């Protein structure tokens, strides 16, 4: 039997509306069950699992290096961020050091990913609330970022570019020129979007004071990322528990005290600006040096050395056919994804495959606060609230 809301005994019968799973404003295959009193939502509940493909089971069946390709497909708007979280978790398990150049490029690409993810969010959020043109602009900008990804990794979305111990390969010549052009052109474009929305009376009517969550509620419901910071909680993993040398970059954490849809909108816009600053700093200061850690039993040797050195050939053979053996233990690595705290909990039993790999998906946790936001409000506000927590159903269901 599908999930539904049971009638409360002694209460008059109300209309139950099933919204989704195929609905343009649920950002994927999310089904909501709404109990309505006229136009007002009295009770709400969500039904998920339509995209469940058992990633966590598949992780256990592949070697650590093979698992990277799975991480792209969970949060498909944040492929490089997922790669980063997974690689950092395995690197923590292995206790290896990543060269500065690789860390810098990782930060640069992850922040570009954040910008393009926020752009998709902005476009779809705006179109949900009736602002059609914003989406077209956002996707235009996103295209330039995806072009950079394609140049670097050969793929627009399923990049799998970060590897355990560093990067897959040295980025091609001239890629920084594309990044530079983007960084130069983008601030003006961002102004344009802001001009369309931030002071737009219709936008304000649809977002201000809607879906309000206090700081305590947001913490209690496990919200993280921009949704938590929109409720006035100043917690950004990049700042508080820096990873991949984020501590060397100068950026501000955006927070707003109001806790409504509009506050979350402002926080994300500010995050785009801060990410742009990080990209600029990373671009200016990429150090020279290797892009892979000095750990021959973990990192694949480069082509050239395999042709001349027997050790490199043996290592290559061992890594590809068998994998590497991390020590027995368990780690939890959290990174700041565009949606919030993305955590990888990895348990190793010493074999080349993870014994258990659990993903703490920020969308999965953020979705829990949705009924709380929409109960007692109009149906029209439901889409505004869904958009404001920026869920990706691929990650919710994993």
């Amino acid at each position, binding site marked *: 039997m599908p999930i539904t809301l049971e009638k409360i005994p002694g209460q008059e019968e109300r209309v139950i509306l099933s919204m989704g799973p195929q609905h343009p404003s649920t950002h994927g295959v999310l089904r909501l069950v709404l109990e309505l009193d006229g136009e007002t939502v009295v009770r709400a509940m969500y039904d998920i699992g339509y995209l469940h493909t058992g990633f966590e089971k598949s992780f256990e069946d592949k070697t650590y290096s093979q698992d990277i390709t799975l991480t792209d497909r969970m949060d498909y708007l944040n492929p490089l961020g997922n790669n980063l979280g997974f690689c950092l978790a395995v690197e923590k398990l292995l206790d290896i050091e990543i060269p500065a150049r690789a860390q810098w490029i990782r930060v640069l690409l992850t922040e570009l990913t954040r910008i393009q993810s926020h752009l998709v969010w902005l476009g779809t959020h705006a179109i949900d609330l009736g602002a059609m043109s914003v989406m077209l602009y956002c996707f235009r900008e996103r295209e330039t970022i995806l072009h950079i990804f394609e140049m670097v990794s050969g793929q627009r979305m399923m990049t799998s570019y970060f590897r355990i111990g560093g990067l897959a390969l040295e980025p091609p010549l001239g890629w920084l020129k594309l990044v530079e052009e983007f960084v130069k052109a983008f601030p003006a474009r961002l102004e344009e979007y802001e001009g369309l929305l931030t002071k737009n009376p219709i936008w304000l009517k649809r977002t201000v004071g809607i879906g309000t969550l206090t700081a305590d509620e947001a*913490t*209690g*419901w496990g919200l993280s990322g921009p949704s938590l910071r929109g409720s006035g909680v100043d917690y950004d993993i990049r700042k508080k528990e820096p990873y991949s040398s984020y501590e060397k970059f100068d950026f501000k954490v955006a927070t707003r005290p109001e806790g409504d849809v509009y506050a979350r909108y402002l926080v994300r816009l500010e995050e785009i600006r801060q990410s742009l600053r990080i990209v600029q700093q990373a671009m200016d200061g990429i150090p020279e040096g290797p892009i892979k850690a000095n750990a021959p039993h973990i990192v694949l040797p480069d082509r050239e050395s395999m042709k001349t050195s027997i050790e490199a050939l043996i290592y290559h053979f061992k890594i590809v056919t068998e994998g590497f053996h991390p020590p027995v233990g368990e780690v939890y690595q959290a990174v700041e994804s565009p949606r919030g705290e993305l*955590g990888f*909990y990895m348990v190793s039993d010493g074999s080349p495959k993870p014994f258990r790999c*659990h993903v703490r998906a920020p969308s*999965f946790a953020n979705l*829990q606060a949705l009924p709380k936001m929409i109960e007692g409000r109009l149906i029209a506000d439901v889409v505004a609230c869904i958009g404001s927590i920026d869920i990706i159903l691929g990650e919710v269901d994993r």
Partner: protein
Amino acid sequence: MPSELESNLTLKKLREFAPQAVDEAREFRGEITIYIRPDMLIRACEFLRDEPDLSFRFLSDVTAVDLYPSEPRFEVVYHLLSLKNAKRLRLKVRTGGDNPGVDSLVPVYPCANAFEREVFDLFGIQFAGHPYLRRILMPEDWEGYPLRKDYPTEGYR
């Protein structure tokens, strides 16, 4: 036992609060894992959440590990975060293979709701006191618990 573990403030406070609650403590790569006795879980979490010096007010994750075929078979894993101190803590509760179950943390952390449903769905671990313990990712009529180690990756055919 390493000295870093002994000097850990959380562990010290928790031991002061309820010496019988802590079964065991481990440290790996700078991360602290505390094994809690099942009947003390809720009280320990309330203490960790409300003690001003610790204030682990954010439950970031609940999951489980299947240690099949050894017994006790399951470990339920909780990741707590203190937003104030930017510190993380891992709690574990052991539960046996027949009728696995632990107390639900929903009264302490509302967000445990969906996390525990996921663990129930994929591991078949019961959470006593959970308000709505139903499958969340798998279809309602699914047989078996996919993340258990004795469940084949391709599924039953």
